[in-house]
């Protein structure tokens, strides 16, 4: 997938999600300082940065769980900076939070069926049945209380819950956090599946190596500002940028070699 950086105006038009010069505060602390970002459908974009850089706050500002004090958040051309979270969801933005945030006292099946009714006007190919087809493991545990699932199963459930609302764009917050390496590998496959389905994905990750392996472009967020924006290839090959994220470029090359790729 190519990046149309030559024509920013066309880019903005194409973008389903546009974040423009957003400033967000927690109390007196200025967490996001003029952050801009864009994302089109069908594009997987990594949002990288160390712990505390503001990645989660940016996602929360987009969906309205934390209100940005100034700037613009546009979804399909509509400004939603001051909109309630459910309005943003109904415009096709699905937020997949980090950690074990499933509806723990509901069964797996109830989690999915509940979410499938949350955006009743949104039509699309995703149904509870299709989620079970895609993640057969979830079908096996559908009657189980969601709080008793493993980390990987919960990640599946959170993803399934997002898919049944038939969104255009998914915002994934630290999906690899706390997952066993095997499950991280599966997560990579799911991301490729999402890409194949034409979803736009904004992937906030501390695990830069993982994120860059599955994304087209990337942003590096540092202390509340975008420090760098570029293609995944550019990011992967810059030792300086990666070391800023705590990843040595050598590690990237080792992993690439192991996977039989060229960097």
């Amino acid at each position, binding site marked *: 997938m190519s990046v149309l950086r030559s024509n920013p105006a066309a880019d903005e038009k194409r973008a389903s999600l546009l974040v423009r010069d957003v400033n967000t505060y927690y109390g007196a602390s200025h967490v996001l300082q003029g952050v801009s970002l864009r994302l089109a459908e069908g594009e997987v974009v990594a949002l990288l940065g160390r712990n505390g850089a503001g990645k989660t706050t940016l996602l929360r500002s987009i969906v309205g769980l934390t209100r940005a004090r100034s700037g613009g958040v546009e979804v399909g051309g509509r400004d939603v900076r001051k909109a309630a979270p459910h309005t943003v969801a109904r415009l096709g933005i699905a937020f997949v939070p980090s950690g074990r945030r499933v*509806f723990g006292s509901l069964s797996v099946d109830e989690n999915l069926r509940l*979410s499938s009714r949350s955006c009743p006007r949104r039509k699309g190919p995703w149904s509870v049945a299709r989620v079970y087809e895609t993640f057969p493991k979830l079908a096996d545990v559908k009657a189980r209380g969601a709080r008793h699932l493993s980390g990987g199963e919960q990640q599946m459930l959170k993803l399934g*819950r997002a898919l049944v609302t038939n969104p255009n764009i998914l915002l994934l917050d630290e999906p690899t956090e706390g997952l066993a390496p095997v499950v991280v590998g599966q997560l990579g496959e799911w991301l490729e599946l999402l890409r194949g389905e034409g979803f736009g994905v904004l992937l906030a990750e501390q695990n830069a190596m993982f994120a860059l392996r599955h994304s087209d472009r990337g942003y590096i967020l540092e202390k509340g500002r975008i420090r760098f924006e570029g293609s995944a290839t550019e990011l992967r090959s810059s030792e300086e940028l990666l070391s800023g994220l705590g990843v040595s470029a050598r590690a990237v090359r080792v992993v690439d070699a192991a996977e039989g790729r060229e960097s």
Partner: protein
Amino acid sequence: MDTVVIEVSGTLSAASSLFLASAGLTLIFGAMRVINLAHGSFYMFGAFLTTSLVGFATGARFWWAVPVAALAVALIGAGVELGVIRHIYGKEHLTQLLATYALFLIFADLALRIWGAESRAVPVPKSFFGSIEIAGEQIPKYNLVIVGTAIAVGVGLWLLLKLTTLGWRIRAAVDDPESLEASGVNLQLLFTVVFALGALLAGLGGAVISPQIAVTPGIDGSIIVGAFIVTVVGGLGSILGAAVAALLIGASETAGTLAAPDWASTFPYIAMIAILAVRPWGLFGQPER
């Protein structure tokens, strides 16, 4: 042995009243994390509205006075949520206590102005007048209505929470309100509905219990204490917990009356302290997240 039936009946009836008064309180706290001191006011309004609607002396209109009173209280509840409660979500417990205590005082004053300081009575409806004989003992027939209503409310709430979309949303809001919101559910609207439902249950409790009590200003305060004990012992947010705790507290009251009549009213508190010492989060509650 001949008193056993009477004691059991009395316990069931007291437990049912307690459950009716506390079900809405625990529902509201569970979903919204709001401690509503004005919950007793809803109960009182349910009772007072019934005295006004039921018709003088005859009580002929009792069966429609009860649902109308409950629905009217639900509307008041919705108004309270929109006007006050909405602005104190996520605030400190102290702020919530002060705000809902203010509501409690305002409603007490309103009731005094509307219905006066004197005690009002609701006649027991004709079909449940008098007593029935169970195992050779005379039990007030109306106890059946109170126990029946409590069971209907308990089962109804259980079905609601287990089977309906609204119920799933309420449970999901207890688990993770933000994720629910971000999935497309209008959380503010849901909270208004839950608060109105909680108020409806309190109003229904007051209306149904009204024929067995003297309806006077002040019943709001006396019921809220019992309702809070039941809610805390059962575990904040747990309907099943409220039902079990209501039975336990009712039984401890009865046991107290039999064992040491002078200390009877102390027994529920002793039961509460004993249970909370072992399980600070209540019988069916969960330790704070």
